[in-house]
Structures are given as C-alpha cells and as structure tokens.
C-alpha cells in the first residue's frame, strides 16, 4: 500500500505508451519497406540496436539504473531515425546519427524527459547537414526501378557500399531510361529551380509512379497516427494543427501561383508529412504541453515545413521545423498557461 493518496492508479505506463507508438509505426514502416526495399528494415534493426546500446552505455556512465532501458524510448528514437534515412545509407552514418541522437541529444541532457530537442530529429539533421548527398540518395520506388536491391544486395549496399556484382547506390537509383530518380520533393524542387512549371512536372510518368509510393507511405503513417489518436496515446492538437497549417500555407501559395507552388495534397502526401505530424512533432518531451500551446506549436511547424520545403535549400523540412519549434516550446508554454480555477476575470460561465 502506498503511503499517501491517491491509492488508485490507472494509466498506460510510459513503457506501454512507447510500445504503442512503435506498434502504430508498423503500417507505415511496412509500406515503406514494400516500396523502398529491405534496406528500410535493415536500417530499423540497426538503428534500434545502436540506440539501445548507446542508451545502455550512457546510463552506465551516468550511474543510473539500467531499468530505464525498459521504457522503450531509445528503441523508438532509433526507429524514428531509421525511418527517416534513405534505405541504403552507409551503416556507419546511421550509427553516427543514432548514437549522437541518444548520447548528445538525450543522455547528456539527463535522459528521458529532460531533452529539449527531439533526439531523432537532432540525429537526422546532423546527418543531413554532414552528409547531404548520401542523405538525399533515396531509391526510386520499386515499381520504376530498373534494378531493385534484394535482401542480400541491401545488406551489401549498407555495409560494403557495393553489391557483389559491383553495383553501387547510384546504379540502383537509375530508373529505366537512365535517369537518376530523386524523391518527389527533391524532384519538384530541382525542376522548379530549373525553371519548369508544375503542369510540366506532373506530366512525367516516372515522377508520377514514384509519387504513388510516397503517397502510400504517408497513408500508412496517417493510419498509424489515427490509431494513436483512437487509443488516446496522443492528443489531437499537434497533428491537427500541423496538417491544417500545411494545408493553409500551401493552399495560399498555390492560389498565389499554381505553377510555382505545389498543392496542399502534394505537401500532405509526400516526404515525412504524416510521420512528422503524428509521430515526430508529438514527442511529448520536447513539444509544447498546454492545449493552446500545442495548437500554436503545430501551426508553426506546418508553416515552416511548407516554407522551408518551398524556399529553403533542402527538399524536406520536417526535421528543421520540429527542432525550431522545440526551441520555442518553453516560451509557448509560458504564454499559453490555462486560466486556473477561480482566476478568470469576470467569473462568467465556463
């Protein structure tokens, strides 16, 4: 019996919350695996392992109980980062990213609950700005690839950077007619930079087929996200605000010039939109914690996602947007504190 009240407790434990989030990632991850190969799966396993190893090592260094490993938060960080990196990223880069995420972005701040930044995104952004070429080298989706790596080839690409037949990542990125395929976000960005207009871009059948893969990945994460909402593992404010803000911002731009700016549907269903809205921006530790604050937090993330994608140097922006807002979360929380009972001016109806 506990010493003091309350004597009742009923809630999902933190360990289970993390497990539920991991579980909800499965549909999206499976689809990503289907369209982009075994590399995705290998990365997930590798990242989860490295994350737990880093966590274990630093819990030990810090003299903390190793029980903390059981909270599954390191696994989740590893998995989120594993989903964000290209399926053929050299293994040592993944290791650098994940261990940096766990050690620098989490453990050095005091472990779970004390990290001001989303660890997975810190790792992701570190990799992105350190190895921009490798980090944007996504494979084309399986339907348009001229060669699609099987399991062994994926392993070889990741760990040896070429297959036994001497093929490299560059070879696998070439589609039927000799083009190198980028992600739709990258493709559109490059095309716009080269002066192409949207109506020209969407006529490219290769691009369109590739886009379908990305759309499905996003649907998968959307489905998982809805599961999280249904089980009340996350609250609606952040995903709603992120998505609504992406729609509004991109719709405004698109309305201003449809040939230069992509549609809301494009922004919603490509890149890391759904993964970000439901699984990354909602990381409770680094996000805003007040109901109003979460809306503001989400709206600003959505805004930055579209603006950085459109005007920034990188094709994808979820990582940057989330980290930027992590920085702002304490301030947002400070100014959005709910009015405490009895402190309401005028004391009118609730």
């Amino acid at each position, binding site marked *: *019996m*506990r*010493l*003091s*009240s*309350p*004597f*009742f*407790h*009923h*809630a*999902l*434990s*933190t360990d*289970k*919350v993390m497990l539920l989030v991991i579980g909800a990632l499965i549909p999206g991850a499976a689809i990503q695996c289907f369209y982009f190969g075994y590399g995705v799966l290998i990365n997930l396993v590798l990242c989860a392992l490295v994350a737990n190893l880093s966590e274990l090592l630093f819990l030990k260094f810090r003299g*903390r*109980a190793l029980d*903390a490993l059981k*909270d599954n*938060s390191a696994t989740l960080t590893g998995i989120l980062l594993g989903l964000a990196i290209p399926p053929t990223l050299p293994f040592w880069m993944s290791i650098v990213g994940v261990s940096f995420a766990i050690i620098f972005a989490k453990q050095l701040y005091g*472990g*779970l*609950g*004390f990290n001001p930044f989303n660890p997975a995104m810190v790792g992701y952004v570190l990799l992105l700005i350190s190895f921009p070429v490798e980090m944007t080298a996504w494979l084309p989706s399986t339907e348009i690839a001229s060669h699609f790596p099987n399991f062994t080839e994926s392993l070889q690409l990741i760990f040896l950077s070429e297959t036994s037949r001497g093929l490299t990542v560059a070879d696998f990125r070439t589609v039927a007619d000799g083009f190198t395929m980028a992600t739709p976000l990258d493709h559109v960005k490059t095309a716009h930079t080269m002066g192409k207009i949207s109506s020209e871009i969407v006529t490219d059948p290769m691009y369109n087929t590739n886009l379908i893969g990305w759309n499905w990945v996003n649907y998968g994460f959307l489905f998982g996200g809805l599961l999280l909402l249904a089980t009340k593992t996350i*609250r609606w404010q952040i995903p709603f605000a992120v998505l609504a803000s992406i729609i509004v911002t991109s719709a405004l731009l698109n309305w201003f010039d449809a040939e230069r700016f992509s549609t809301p549907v494009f922004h919603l269903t490509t890149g890391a939109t759904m993964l970000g809205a439901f699984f990354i921006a909602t990381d*409770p*530790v680094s*996000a805003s*914690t*007040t*109901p109003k604050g979460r809306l503001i937090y989400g709206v600003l993330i959505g805004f930055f996602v579209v603006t950085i994608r459109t005007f920034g140097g990188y094709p994808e922006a979820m990582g940057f947007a989330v980290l930027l807002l992590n920085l702002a979360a304490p301030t947002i*929380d400070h100014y959005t*504190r*709910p*009015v*405490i*009972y*009895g*402190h*309401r001016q005028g*004391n*009118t*109806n*609730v």
Partner: protein
Amino acid sequence: MNSIIQKAPGHFHGGIHPPEFKSLSNQKSIERIPLPEFLLLPLKQHIGSVDEAVVSVGDKICKGQLVAIPTQFGAAIHSPADATVVAIEPSLVGHPSGKPVMALKLQVSKRNSSESFEELKSTENSEWKTLPLEQLINKVQEAGIVGLGGATFPTATKLRTQPVDTLIINAMECEPYITCDDRLLQEKADEVLQGALIASHLLNAKQIIFATEDNKPEAIESLKKAILDSQAKNVKIVVAPTKYPSGGEKQTIELVTGKQVPHGQLPASLGIAVQNVATVKAIRDAILFNQPLTERVVTLTGDLVKTAGNYVIPFGTPVSHLIELLKIDKSQLEAVIFGGPMMGQSIRDFGAPVTKSTNCIIFNKKKSNQHDWVIEAKQHKSCIRCSECQQACPVDLLPQQLLWFSQSEQWEPLEEHGLLDCIECGACAYVCPSEIPLVHYFRYGKSEIADLKANKKKSEKAKERYDFREMRLERAKAERAAKHKKAAEARKKAAQDANKDPDGKQAAINAALERVKQKKNKQTSDNKSSEGEN
C-alpha cells in the same frame, strides 16, 4: 414533476473516471454496530486547534455528555456512550502527521447490543422555528457539528457566513467505494431534507439544490419522493454526470451554477453555501432532538469485507474492533484506507479510531506488485511531459510544470504557477503513465511555501523592529544633538555677555552689591520675625 430534477448546467475541466466499487456497499441497509469495550476519542476531529478536555480521569460520563471544548477555533466533542474516563493522554489516532494527538480513552460501561438505525426516541422540538437564528446556530455549535464530507470545518462558522442565496447540499460522493451519503439518502431522505430546510432557514437561503451524480438513481428517486411529500418549495435536485472529483466543493459549485468561486474567496461571495448530506442530517438531529454529534454513518468496504455496507459507528471506535466485527482476515491486511482511494489516508496502526471525518474505511488485500509510494528520484520513472495530468486537472493547473518546479525546489515559480490552488484530488497522479506521486510532491511544495512565507513574515517583522530601533536611535541622537546645540548656544551667549565686560569687574561688583542688599533684607526680616515671636 420532473422539474424537481435537472441536469447540471455547468461542467468542470478535466476529471477522471476511476472504477467505482460502489455496488459492494450500496445494496445493504445501514446498520448500527455494537459498542467496543474501549473508545479512543481524539480531542481534534475538526479543522482548528486541539480541544480541551472538561472531564478528568476516573469520571463517569454518560452518552452525549460534553467532554471537550474548543480552545480557539474548533468544535465541541461529546461522549458517544456511557463510559468511564480511563486516560487522557497523547495517543496515536491516525493523524496524517503520524504524531500522537491528545485523546480520551473511555471504558464503555453499557455495551448494549446492536440496535437498528432507527428514529430518535426523544421528542421532537417543534418550537425551533420561533427561536432566534443565533440561538439555533449556537445549538449547532454546541452539538459539535462539523462538515462530515471529510473536511470537518466547524459547521456553525459556515452557517454564520452570510448572506447566502443558494444552499447546495453536496450529495455527489464522487470517490470510489464510498456510499454513506447514497445510503443515507436512500433510507432517510426525509430527514436529510428536513435538515436541509433547517440549514436553509439558518442561512436565510432562498433555494436549496441537492447536487448529485447520475450513478445514484435510488437516492435521487427517494429524495424526489421526500421533496414531493414535504411540499417544500424551491428545492430541486441537480444531477451531474459521474466524474471524479465532482464532489469537490469548488467543482460542485461549478457544476451546479456554471460559476467558479473567485480565487481567495469563499463560496459565500457567490451567495452560495455548500453542506454535505450527513452534515444537514446532523443539524436536524441537533435542532429537533438536541442530539450532539457522537456517531456517523461509515462505509466499511473492500475486498476483504464479506458484509460490506454502511454502519453507524460511534466516534472513537478503533479499527481493530471493526476488523473483529467484520471477521476480516488480518494476515491479508497491510493497511486500511480512511476515506476514499483518491484522497484518503492509509493507516497501518489498527488502534486508530473512527472520527468525525471518517466517511469510509477500505479493507483491501495487500498487493505485492505495488511499491511504496515515496519521493525518491530513482523510485519513479521520468516525466515525459505527456500532459495527461493537465487534461485531468479539475482546476486547470499544469501539474507537469509544477512537478518540474517542485523537483528543482523553485518555490516562487511554483507558487506563481498556482500550486496553492491545487485541491490534492489526485486525478493527475491517477493518470500519470510514469506513476509519479504528483500529489506527494505538491503537498511537499505547499509546506515548503508555507514555511517560506512564515520565515518571510518573521524576517519582515524583524526588519520592522530593526528599522524602528534605528529610527529611535537616530531620533535620540538628533535630540541629543539638539540639546547639545542649545547648551552650546547658551554657553556661547554667556560668553558673549561676558565679552561685553572683559574683566568681569563690573559684574563682580554688581554681584557683590546684590549679595549685600540681600543680606540686609534678610537681616531686617529676621529681626522682624524674631520680634514677632517674642
């Protein structure tokens, strides 16, 4: 006549839906228990200071006799039985501090066997309506009545806080397990209503609202019948959806009126008084039958109790007596909970008695998987800032922030974030996925803030004294300086006068002449007087 029953117009933020366990005890009629051999009657069963005993060891006392009176703020205590006082000493009575409290040990002389919970036999005082209000309120005070919902605030004081427009009878009973108010309403709705009408008369209230939750349909039905039978006007029942903690006074008010009691003010500022069901019943017994408060209905429940139900239990009855009566397997029992599982108190010493605040005692099997709930950094998991606590908080606090400030002992931001508005309902800790003992942290923070304030007050007083002393010294110095200045001036003046006559010769001559003159005068007068004498 459905207009008597209304849906609650307001709602409050947050809240939780814990399992209720009410059906364990709300199916059985209230029974009276046989008296134990000894009663342990604490002299503090109310908010305020410890009472002073007005009986001494060896005294034979009878049921209902006044045994202790309040020294400052408090409520009188009466003997629940014919008994002999065997000791008056500090005893362990299950006080939250764990410290002993002064208590009377009574040996019960007439252990009459259980009688049913029936009508009081003395004759009804039908004259009460003609008596002045103050006299009636004094009667409530003399009967030792306190808020029986658990807060034990002296009722007479509450009745004197006027003006009041609406009297709310709190029948929410939102904590799991507890059914004593529910049963009381099912069985004695007419008496409770009578009590409410008396309380309303004492408060000059214009309307009475019974506030309850929708999980007590039988109580609502029986109350409705009582209201219809009595043809009382301006009495209605407001039914709120079951949600913890709707029985908190502030939450009840918000549910019933849609308004919030302004911070730092009493419900009376909204023209509202809130009384508990059992309290108004006690008021009735005091006014109509001169019955002091010596016993109450207590829910005895839990998975170790085979005959869970509600029992009339005299104050001072130790838990051990109840364990015997209910034939509870003691080996399975580690501690009992006094009150509900959300805000109650765990008691490990079974000598602890039932007091005015005891509305429920829960006897549950000990669970091996539940660790002791203590504050130690490594004992609980980290807060992941999921904000479920914020979603559950009925006063709209941010428990996750409060925890942060409590852990880092930042008392000022802690207070600024509203810690003192926390009602310790435990909803936050209930939903916390990391099982953090939030309420424990908040109690700790509150006591630290109280300490800090006391120290600040003390140092302010010291500073005031110091400043006054400085001022006084300064003043004395100034006064001295002024005196010295005056003296110096006088000397200076004298010196100046002297300067007019540098050698002082003329002055010396004048002085000598004066002396001679005086001498002469004296001689003549002396001669005259001596002549007169002769």
